[in-house]
């Protein structure tokens, strides 16, 4: 299963980026193998409008089943509703910290998924 964690840097030790639409990077992580891909979000940072919508579209297109981030803004939230992706906000610490918490099952999603 793949998840996305918003990150300030390109490695699992990087601090979590609390932003979604204007977050620096999205790390697309395979929870089982620990392998990951870095998605650059400079287009989102530069977008004058609709950064949240664009980010939502990218998450949906990536096949990720969960998004871990600090806060999801109103347009991003609207965009992700009913998307099949579970959202976990209030993420903090490093990407690795959040990955460990996710694996341990100790996190509760903001919204649960119905397809």
């Amino acid at each position, binding site marked *: 299963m793949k998840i996305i964690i918003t990150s300030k840097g390109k490695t699992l030790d990087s601090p979590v980026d609390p932003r979604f639409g204007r977050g620096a990077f999205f790390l697309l992580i395979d929870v089982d193998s620990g392998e990951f891909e870095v998605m650059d979000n400079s287009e989102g940072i530069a977008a004058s409008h*609709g950064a949240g919508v664009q980010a939502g579209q990218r998450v*949906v297109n990536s096949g990720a089943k969960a998004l871990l981030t600090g806060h999801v803004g109103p347009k991003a939230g*609207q965009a992700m509703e009913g998307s099949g992706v579970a959202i976990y906000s209030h993420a903090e610490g490093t990407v690795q910290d959040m990955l460990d918490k996710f694996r341990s099952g100790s996190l509760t999603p903001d919204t649960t998924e119905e397809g």
Partner: protein
Amino acid sequence: MILTVASGKGGTGKTTVSVNLAVLASRSGRPVHFCDCDVEEPNAHLFLNPRWDEKKQITLPLPVVDQDLCSHCGKCAEICEFNAIISLPTKTIVFDDLCHACSGCWLVCPEKAIAQGERIIGETETGKAGDLHFTHGRLRIGETQVPPLVEAVNKAVNPDHLVIRDAPPGVTCPAVATIHGSDFVLLVTEPTPFGLSDLKVAVELVRDMKLPCAVLVNRHGSGDDRVDEYCREEGLHLLTGLPFRRDVAESISRGELIVDTIPEMKTAFQGLLVEVLTLAEEASR
């Protein structure tokens, strides 16, 4: 002849200059149409007090997705430059306030699932103040798409009239939409560092748009000479400035036309009208 009164910096006196010029031109027997193109904050009607004849709603097309026909292929989201449409596995969502009505999405949809709805962006109102024809726009509160409403205001004129457009401040899309299609641009500024700094950007815009212009220093005497110097260095037509006077400010604050309340202003504006129209007519030859 379409004369647009614009500025860089806000608050320099565009509305004061445009309404007073329009009134004098109209009273001299010339057919004149005044367009208040600051559709976000129209204020010229406060000075001209037109009697209203017509109100028209202005709309933009808006994509409406038939979810039953949609195959979730994502082509609409791919083509949208404004992130206004998102393609989810179970539905396609449109964000009205991001949509720029480019029509890309409904053109590329392979299922013909996107219809053209419409949404209201504001209204235009037209009327007369004496013999002076008047049109302004009122943008819907919260609306982001401004230029289409400015274009609707600009279109509402008789092309045989002398058209005077009061531009919004600055050099962004609403100002560009106002200036577009003008024959001559009158840039109103004030003799201060901010006035000069913003004037330079406005001059750059007008030059990019390849339009003739002239500069008018309002509240002359309240600052320094750097605007005058800049105009000389750049070879810009510098019109006779309007002096800084407290009684002028007081009269404006009461919503009065200063050509009616202050004789020296009437004289100054009569001179200004002749200066501007002469320059504009020369430039158009």
